[in-house]
């Protein structure tokens, strides 16, 4: 494996994390090109382990993946720099967008634009739900999908249980039932 300088590591995660739209998948694909194919700084097996672990790590998968891959290359300092470089510039863009959206001196045109974007968010949220369910929507798992999604929805919509309790029960279900 080719050792990587911290400055190069920061440059890679800065670019992969902040210049890609569409969530984590394009970022992880770009990191495969940079870290496995181009250099290589980690092995394909290490990449696969980081990818699998990121899926079971709470929070945002792409940040966990970045932390793991950078840790393998440069230890804790590498992990901290990778996660910071991969998210902080975008966080500033979000902050600027928020300041613009909540400005007290909004023009009518801006208000109408924001209202339309917020309406599109509802379509996006519905799409997110479909994306989460679709990989498991097959003959063998459909009954579990319907059961878990419907019961979680009903428990939350009717206020029967707090979200954290619903997630805990789902984890128990997953631990004892073969999906």
């Amino acid at each position, binding site marked *: 494996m080719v050792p990587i300088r911290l400055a190069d590591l920061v440059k890679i995660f800065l670019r992969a994390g902040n210049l890609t*739209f569409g969530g*984590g998948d394009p970022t992880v694909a770009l990191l495969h090109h940079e870290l496995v194919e181009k250099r290589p700084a980690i092995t394909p097996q290490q990449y696969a382990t980081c990818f*699998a672990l990121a*899926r*079971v*790590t*709470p*929070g*945002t*998968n792409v*940040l966990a993946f970045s*932390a*793991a891959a950078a*840790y393998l290359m440069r230890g*804790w300092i590498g992990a901290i720099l990778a*996660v910071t470089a*991969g*998210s902080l*510039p975008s*966080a500033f863009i*979000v902050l600027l*967008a*928020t300041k613009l*959206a*909540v400005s007290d001196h909004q023009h*009518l*045109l801006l208000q*109408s*634009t*924001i*209202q*339309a*974007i*917020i*309406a*599109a*968010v*509802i*379509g*996006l*949220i*519905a799409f997110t*739900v479909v994306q*989460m369910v679709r990989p*498991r929507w097959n003959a063998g798992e459909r009954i579990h999908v319907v059961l*878990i*999604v419907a019961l979680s*929805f*009903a428990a*939350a919509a009717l206020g029967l249980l707090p*979200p*954290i309790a*619903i*997630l805990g*029960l*789902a*984890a128990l279900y997953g*631990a004892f039932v*073969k*999906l």
Partner: protein
Amino acid sequence: MNALLLYLVLLKATLTSFSGMTSLPIVRQELVVERKILTDRQLNTAVAAGRVSPGPNGLYLVSVGYMAAGASGACAGWCALITPAFLIIGLLRMLGTAVNHPRMETVVRAVTLASAGLILATSISLARDAITSWATALIAITSFFLLIRFKLDPLWIMLGAGIVGLALALI
């Protein structure tokens, strides 16, 4: 709201989710329903702000933090977003390839499906605020259709919706 408390509240949401948007139900439960620090309108705006930027999906927490507690809140939101990422290093050292154990995978699958149900329930409340006319209803339905049918990047959907909103205001 105190930035440290906000960090802990948002951390609770990120620690119990397995992708960027799945923290939304707990964020809403904590900040809109229980503490009444944010409104559904502000939460909707935060999600929109998070999606017009490149980068990880969960960045809407920065916007949530800013609306709840200003600049220090934005910082708390970003910290809550990145903190769980470092748990992977412990997992890497302890589990290695054992993460592919079938039981571990089914737990994550079940939690992800439950998150889908929770997001669906949350979206009903958010939709009440977001869909205020036939035009906004049409934008929401069209956005969903375009994402499903053509797999467009959400950024283009947001930009397109913004242009439509601007055009409607000008008419």
